[in-house]
């Protein structure tokens, strides 16, 4: 009677968008990391569900990568980092939560409209919908990087953006597995580089608030 394959794919993909909004809403740093882990977990489920309905076995490996690296190792590493940096305070945002939410809503509406129009030729409803939602997750991740001043939450924004990329890659059939692996590893490398950077910023300025970088460059007195 029902197209449960579509319903569950819809449920998982739209929960990813919802969790992106929770990331924007959240203003405590540990809670932010937990919500990020939740998003990665949901991503792993979404990818595994795609693997099941497409019958594509290599996607199970992608799901496992998402589960192990993004839902466990990255949040754990960020937890350690926050502990060692000693920044358990509230996250400073550049603009208020409510305007950011409204902008985020606009971005979701934009990506939905754009993607549904662009992919009209494709016959798979699940792929079309996944593409629309993954573009939303990507844009929301970018929005988060723009609206946060704390470097750690910018890293979380970057990682959640990458979650959107993985969702897009699994929705569109025929993405070579090599590309996925390399994306996953480049994100890990980025994570390490950013971690080193975080400690350098902290060493130099005694804070991870990126606004001081503007002053250092002489853009703001």
């Amino acid at each position, binding site marked *: 009677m029902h197209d449960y394959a579509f319903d569950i794919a*819809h*449920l998982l993909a739209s929960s990813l968008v919802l969790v992106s909004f929770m990331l924007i809403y959240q203003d405590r740093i540990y809670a932010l990391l937990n919500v990020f882990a939740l998003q990665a977990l949901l991503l792993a489920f979404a990818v595994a569900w795609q693997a099941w309905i497409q019958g594509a076995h290599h996607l199970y490996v992608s799901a496992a990568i998402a589960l192990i690296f993004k839902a466990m190792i990255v949040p754990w590493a960020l937890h350690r980092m926050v502990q060692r940096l000693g920044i358990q305070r509230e996250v400073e945002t550049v603009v208020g939560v*409510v305007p950011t939410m409204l902008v*985020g809503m606009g971005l979701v*509406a934009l990506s*939905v409209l754009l993607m549904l129009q662009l992919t009209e030729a494709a016959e798979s409803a699940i792929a079309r919908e996944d593409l629309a*939602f993954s573009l939303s997750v990507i844009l929301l991740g970018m929005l988060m990087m723009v609206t946060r001043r704390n470097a750690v939450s910018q890293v979380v924004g970057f990682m959640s953006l990458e979650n959107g990329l993985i969702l897009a890659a699994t929705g569109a059939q025929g993405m070579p597995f090599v590309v996925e692996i390399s994306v996953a590893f480049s994100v890990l490398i980025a994570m390490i580089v950013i971690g080193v950077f975080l400690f350098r910023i902290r060493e130099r300025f005694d804070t991870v608030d990126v606004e001081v970088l503007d002053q250092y460059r002489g853009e703001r007195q």
Partner: protein
Amino acid sequence: MELIQNLVLQGVQMLVVLVLAPGLTGLVRKVKARLTRRQGAPILQPYRDLARLMRKEVVLAENASWLFRVSPYLIFAATWVAAALVPTFAVGLVFSWTADLIAIVALLGSARFFLALAGMDVGTSFGDIGSSREMMIGAIAEPAMLLTVFSVALIAGSTQLSNVVGFMTSGEIGIRVSAGMALVALVIVAIAENARIPVDNPATHLELTMVHEAMVLEYSGRHLAMIELASSLKLLLYVALIGCIFVPWGIAAPGAGFADLVVGLASFLVKLALGGTMLAVFETSIAKMRVFRVPEFLGAALMLGLLGTLLLFVSRSL
């Protein structure tokens, strides 16, 4: 004969909500008291309070206008009609064609309007503070409620509650993430609209935090009784609304026999008891938030409603 029977059913519905409303308030108070290891007043206490208030003399401020005296009855009437429109134990009653979700939102909105006016009528600073805060909450809660209504209406294909209940019981709904979002948004709106913790504390008279109590501070006697009864009815309305949209099982279908009606009534009582207990547990486990954080809390409801509508748009256009 059939018409008389239908009218009687409709009358029973109106009486049921009126009679049960103070009991629900009493139940919530009792459970909250027990959870904080107090004995608490008996569940029937709100009825006694209402009877006492009805007997008492009305004390009016010297500069109170006619609006101040009329408002309690207007607020009570609007809230009672709205509460009676929500299906409780049966759907398809005579007046169910008027039971439109948007009409219910409008009735509650006009009750809020008169309450805020009455709060400012006498010109005390508490009343003004209460009215201004109530309007701040209402300005976000009402759009959030409407967006929730839209997403429910998009799922069920109707804003009429009887049709919505019919669709929800038919099992055609499947797995809908938008329905879950609408549920969470509706719960947040219900908490804010009924002045419960964390938005407002119904038991406080501390001027820094009160919203609803500040507006009705000048009322006494039968006026206060009307207002208290109206706020009990509003709480019952939201519990019944959430119950009939999201857990519609047990409600008697149109033209059901006597046994079905009894089952419907029993299931409604169970839903009320569960809803009241859950509200009390939630209120006990959370702290009151600062007034200026309330827009963020309600903003989440607004966002959920909007996101739910957007998601429905996606899944319908595929």
